[in-house]
């Protein structure tokens, strides 16, 4: 207590309390410790009125913790928060709401079967004599929508509208509550390029109308485009705040990672060989709706090429991979690997026939989180004679040796080496462990589904190199990705998937993000030969 009073006194003396301030929110010298780690170490973030301020940092840099402090979910050990120059105590999210702080979460918090209007007024319903008064609310929503160019239909059901519209509903929720400080948590992850452009424009409109915006992201391009200033965190520490007009992407990334990062994947011209994977007329049923998630899809992948299946999330890519790897049965179609028909084969058979699968969800499918690292390293091979003797006993020593080799070769970092419980490892290293396991199986076909999801630039760079190395070693690689940068950069061939069908094939050298976006959004399509 006495310490925080001291800090307070010093800060007061320095800043001169009561003066008119240019800052909407100030978080000064925030320190938040967790057992064994300082998540926020003396971090200062000052958000000017009417500016768009980016918060940049890798995973685990402390962005989420800082925002949780701002929302009263955590109480910092040190430091103070000021609103309009006056110190405030934020004990819980209700306090944050009262101060006019609102947030659009990465995963929307909307009731699917409610209308847009219902969702907006949820929690602050206008009520007279116990009856809802929607008319007033509708007028207010329409006015707000017009003022900021949000273009929203108040009576549409959430489940019927696009992801971009859902996001605008979230924005309207904040505006309806007269929030002055708007926080966007990685808002572009789920959007098409066109939608991203629209969002950027909306953010600029909001700022022009005097709202203060905090934009959390690790996408440098977007920050450069939309933000006025950018605060960079690295490993819980405050690195600096820069004006985007006076900096470059290179500089920002160096601040974020602590070293220079190569954005472009270095690769030679591909030399496609024989057909490795041949999928013909695959149809997979959907678990969500009555239509087929994958509809009559045919594709071929040759040895020595990376083919990318691109598209917006939820257009059948996941189900295609499930059908390919055997996690879901096919309605119809055929899967051939190196000329061998695997259509009705078990998952194990596919795996031993030369198919490796880096799954989309590493926690759901990729790892047994409560197993040790070494046990996860042999997850696809534990039954082989190298690891199990004829009596059914595990050869522990061989497992240990094998795990140690992979850990060294693929630089998988963990607290206690092979015996580390996988749950305690960082996301990047968990992913590296999966990649090591799947690549070391020496597959003919490597299926990598969003292999860089949620990872920081350094890890992304590493994983892309591994994919290219597989290609150069004459393997076939199927990359499924939602990240446009990755789609443009890594593969030799791009297939765009829309509503369960392949609607376009592109050479990454001859297309751009704009064109891909149109196909991904279903605005254009062309016939694709199998």
């Amino acid at each position, binding site marked *: 207590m006495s310490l925080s009073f001291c800090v307070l006194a010093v800060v007061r003396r320095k800043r001169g309390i009561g003066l008119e301030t240019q800052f909407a929110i100030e978080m000064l010298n925030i320190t938040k410790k967790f057992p064994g780690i300082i998540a926020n170490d003396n971090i200062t973030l000052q958000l000017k009125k009417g500016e768009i301020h980016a918060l940049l940092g890798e995973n*685990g840099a402390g962005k989420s913790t800082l925002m949780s402090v701002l929302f009263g979910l955590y109480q910092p050990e040190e430091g103070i928060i000021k609103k309009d120059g006056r110190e405030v105590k934020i004990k819980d999210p209700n306090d944050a709401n009262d101060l006019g702080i609102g947030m659009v979460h990465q995963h929307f918090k909307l009731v699917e079967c409610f209308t847009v209007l219902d969702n907006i007024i949820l929690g602050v319903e206008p009520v007279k004599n116990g009856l809802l008064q929607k008319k007033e609310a509708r007028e207010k929503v329409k006015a707000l929508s017009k003022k900021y160019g949000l273009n929203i239909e108040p009576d549409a059901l959430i489940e019927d509208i696009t992801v971009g519209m859902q996001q605008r509903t979230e924005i309207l929720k904040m505006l309806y509550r007269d929030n002055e400080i708007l926080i966007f948590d990685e808002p572009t992850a789920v959007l098409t390029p066109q939608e991203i452009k629209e969002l950027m424009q909306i953010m600029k409109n909001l700022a022009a109308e005097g709202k203060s915006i905090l934009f959390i992201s690790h996408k440098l391009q977007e920050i450069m485009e939309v933000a006025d200033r950018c605060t960079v965190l690295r490993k819980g520490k405050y690195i600096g705040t820069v004006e985007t007009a006076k900096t470059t992407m290179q500089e920002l990334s160096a601040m974020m990672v602590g070293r220079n990062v190569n954005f472009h994947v270095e690769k030679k011209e591909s030399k496609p060989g024989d057909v490795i994977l041949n999928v013909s007329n695959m149809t997979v049923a959907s678990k969500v709706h009555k239509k087929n998630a994958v509809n009559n899809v045919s594709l071929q992948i040759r040895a020595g090429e990376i083919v990318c299946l691109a598209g917006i999330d939820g257009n059948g890519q996941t189900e295609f991979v499930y059908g390919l790897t055997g996690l879901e049965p096919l309605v119809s179609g055929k899967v051939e690997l190196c000329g061998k028909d695997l259509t009705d084969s078990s998952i194990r058979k596919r795996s031993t026939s030369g198919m490796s699968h880096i799954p989309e969800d590493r926690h759901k*499918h990729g790892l047994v989180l409560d197993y040790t690292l070494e046990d996860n390293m042999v997850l696809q091979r534990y039954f082989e004679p190298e690891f199990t003797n004829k009596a059914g*006993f595990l050869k522990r020593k061989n497992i240990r040796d094998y795990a140690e080799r992979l850990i060294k070769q693929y630089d998988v970092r963990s*607290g206690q080496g092979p015996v580390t419980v996988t749950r305690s490892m*960082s996301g990047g290293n968990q992913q590296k462990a999966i990649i090591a396991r799947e690549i070391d199986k020496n597959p003919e076909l490597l299926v990598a589904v969003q292999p860089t999801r949620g990872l920081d630039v350094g890890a992304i760079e590493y994983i892309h190199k591994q994919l290219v190395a597989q290609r150069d070693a004459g393997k076939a690689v199927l990359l499924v990705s939602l990240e446009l940068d990755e789609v443009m950069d890594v593969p030799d061939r791009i297939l765009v998937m829309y509503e369960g069908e392949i609607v376009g094939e592109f050479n990454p050298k001859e297309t751009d993000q704009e064109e891909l976006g149109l196909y991904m959004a279903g605005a254009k399509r062309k016939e694709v030969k199998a």
Partner: protein
Amino acid sequence: MKKKGFFKNEGVQSFIASIICILLGLLIGFIVLLFINPKGAGEAMLRIIQNFLKWNRSEKQIESLGNTLVKTAPLLMCSLSILFSYKVGLFNIGVAGQYVAGACAALIGVFGLHWNWVGCILLAAAAGAAFGVISGLLKAYCNVNEVISGIMLNWIALYSTNMILSSYTVAGRKDTPELASSVETAKAIIPNAGINKLFNGNKYVGLGIIIAIIFAFLVWILLSKTKFGYELKATGYNKNAAKYAGMAEKRNIVVTLGIAGLIAGIGASLLFLTDFSQWDINQTSVPAMGFNGIASAFLGGLNPIGAIFSSYFIQHITDGGSNVDLTMYCSQISDLISAIIIYLCSFTGLIRYLFKSGIFSKKKDRPEENANAEPEQPAPVETTAKGGNE
């Protein structure tokens, strides 16, 4: 490898958690006794803790210890059945029904088929396994929760057993006859193998406890050393990952509950083939042995070897409870007190959670990346077994 403090060792934490639970249970049991009748509370508590030590002659003590061990064998088997399935992510509350099925089959072997003890044990194993497999099939292929099907099967097993065994009782008696009463059935008694000599000639003590302890080691080996155990645990921790890795996760569920049932079934035969107790065909509640197995499994830290000791302790308390002075307390008191103690025994998960969240130690060594990446991740709370002895 980081050097860990003594108190950070998981085994040590588990052990301490169990001890804390036991003390807590004894304390609350004592408070309840105080409320009911403050005069006799101290004496009653002493009786419970003493169990066989109440006898002042050592031969009598050792003989009485033998009785407790006879009943420890089936309890240990039930506890192994629970912890085995729990490791695979299944809560085998049907252990009581599998136990009953085992008892029924063993006694059919004795009175109906006139088999010897080995045959009867195998029959009991098959019956228990069959009940387990039913739960397993329902879970794997119809997605019926094993807790629901287990509870239903418990009652099905109980009343079918009452019905079937009523044909072996002598008219007017509610218990099945003693095995020793006829030559044809006496061969089904599990041999003493000289072990009874250690217990002042207690005729009930025999191979049963040895078989149970062997099973504890077998379960331990199966779970920690074999490919089969690796697959089963993977299925239990994350069935999606097991499927992804090409394991037959449905088959594993069926096999797991089958094995769990087999263990419980053998457990029942280890009691009823000693002649120590007879089946009461009028009973309307599922024997507590299965449910006590739940508490015992958790008290033993879900470790097969730990279960040996926790099973003994719980049986010790249960037997001790029957020594409470009935002039001061009503006859239900022994069950009530042992139930309270057993109930608290299953709180080891909570205590271990408190350990992890650092109530007992100021410095914690949570891995850096984890704390950093997802600080709000809730620590997993063990499912504590409830509904032990109601």
